[in-house]
């Protein structure tokens, strides 16, 4: 049985919604069961947004999880919030460009990705969500990058079409950065 539960968290405008939705689209298009659920209401105050994506090859029960198997944290408040929540042995992937105090929890994999810096190098700060998603795909192997690229082609909003290749590149850069083997802290 295959079952993943991911949390994406960051400031509004960092592309949390689109990055996580893209993963959900790709899972759907790969024929898997998937749920995507945003936090809504008062939780969104203060400008942080988070979404939970569950991907499984079976009917999905709970779409929310207390201890996600992986968290993609785009800013420091997200690291603070989710570091204690990641499932033991799970993954905390964080945007090292913005998180100056790295997580220290023992028993989970904490992986820094300088996503904002890489996005800036690629010419657009908004690409950071794709860099992080690329890294997540690489580390977890949940879906091949090619599948996500296809979904990107199908679901990138029309007004962003000119950014298609840049988005793909960001995905691949993220994957490259995450290629080093992992050791639990």
């Amino acid at each position, binding site marked *: 049985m295959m079952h993943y539960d991911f949390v994406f968290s960051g400031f509004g405008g960092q592309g949390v919604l689109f990055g996580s939705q893209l993963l959900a689209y790709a899972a759907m298009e790969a024929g898997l069961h998937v749920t995507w659920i945003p936090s*809504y*209401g008062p939780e969104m105050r203060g400008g942080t947004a988070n979404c939970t994506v569950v991907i499984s090859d079976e009917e999905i029960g*709970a779409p929310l999880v207390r201890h996600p198997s992986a968290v993609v944290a785009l800013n420091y408040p997200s690291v603070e919030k989710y570091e204690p929540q990641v499932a033991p042995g799970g993954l905390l992937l964080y945007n090292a460009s913005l998180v100056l105090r790295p997580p220290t929890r023992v028993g989970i994999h904490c992986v820094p990705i300088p996503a904002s810096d890489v996005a800036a190098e690629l010419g657009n700060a908004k690409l950071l969500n794709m860099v992080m998603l690329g890294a997540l795909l690489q580390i977890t192997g949940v879906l091949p990058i090619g599948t996500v690229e296809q979904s990107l082609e199908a679901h990138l909003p029309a007004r962003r079409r000119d950014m298609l290749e840049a988005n793909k590149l960001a995905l691949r850069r993220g994957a490259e950065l995450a290629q080093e083997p992992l050791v639990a802290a």
Partner: protein
Amino acid sequence: MAKQLMKGNEAIAEAAIRAGVEAYFGYPITPQTELLEYMSKRMPELGRVFLQAESEVAAINMVYGAACAGRRVMTSSSSPGISLMQEGLSYIAASNVPAVIVDVMRGGPGLGNIAPSQSDYFQMVKMAGHGDYKPIVLAPATVQEAVDLTVLAFDLAEQYRTIVTVLLDGMLGQMMEPVELPAMRALPATPPAWAITGAAGRAKNVVVPFRLQADELEALNFDLQRKIADIARREVRFKEYFIDGANADKVHGDRAELIVVAFGAAGRVALSAVKAARQQGIRVGLHRPITLSPFPDERLSQLADEARGFLVVEMNAGQMLEDVKLSVGGQAPVRFHGRMGGQVPMPDDIAQEIEKLDGMTSRPIDHKIEGPVVLRAAVGPARKPETGRN
């Protein structure tokens, strides 16, 4: 047709459109507003009626008007808005006109909050307004089910000339899942013969939600009750996991000894818990009512013949719990796990409750001799009695 990834609220709106809804009236309230917004765009595109009413009171009465006109009509709201609709719902019921109501529940009481909740079970199932009647209440647990049940809602509403409610919580309204949408249906060519369309070339039609004489009003009530009984006989729906025969897995034999009962979002969370508990070797299954009204009481009573115990899980203080207890009729202990105020129960908490139930009922207590043992877990920390006042 290819699957689409859709939010529950929008999927319901699109499903209603494809089921041929001709008019939508509503008032903004979180967490159902996407439904109204979706309608505001799509209905005029299709030349159908969309109107943002001045209140839920007005919205439900507009629904009543359009329903009297024999048109497929719906509204959607969330808990406080449904409270305001109660009078109108009762008029619709008394008039035997079809209408579909979507309630995306939020935390209560009062203004409560906009977080997911199942606090409207009583409000929708027991009495969606004054007088003796029951709407059909459908409780989806997935976005696909929300789509399918919305289409069914229109069919049942017209077949029985009744109110059908699609009852979900904010979580399902906000979440995205892959769905297969139904094909677009043609709109009905002509309104039904009873509709209020102008007395052209026929005797006048009237819709009258009252009877002054007691005998006449009792007759109206008998007709309603016959309809409700008919619906109860024919329309009960539920889904079971790991309970017996076909849907039990190979590992643990074919009969669940413990039954978790939960609907909607709580039902799907409970599914995760049930799976986890089965990993621990506990023979537990899930019964998820899809029609909350009519309630699957016969099935639960049948399960109670052999089950060691029941666990009801809800996002409220124990509303469906009462119906489960009635169905079980004291044949087995019934425990409860509920969260309120917009808290969503988590699978590990439910799994713990399953373990407790397992431990408790595997001791050889003979509840059939001792009389019904109906336990109810405390749903919060016990409060110290206040002193000096009462």
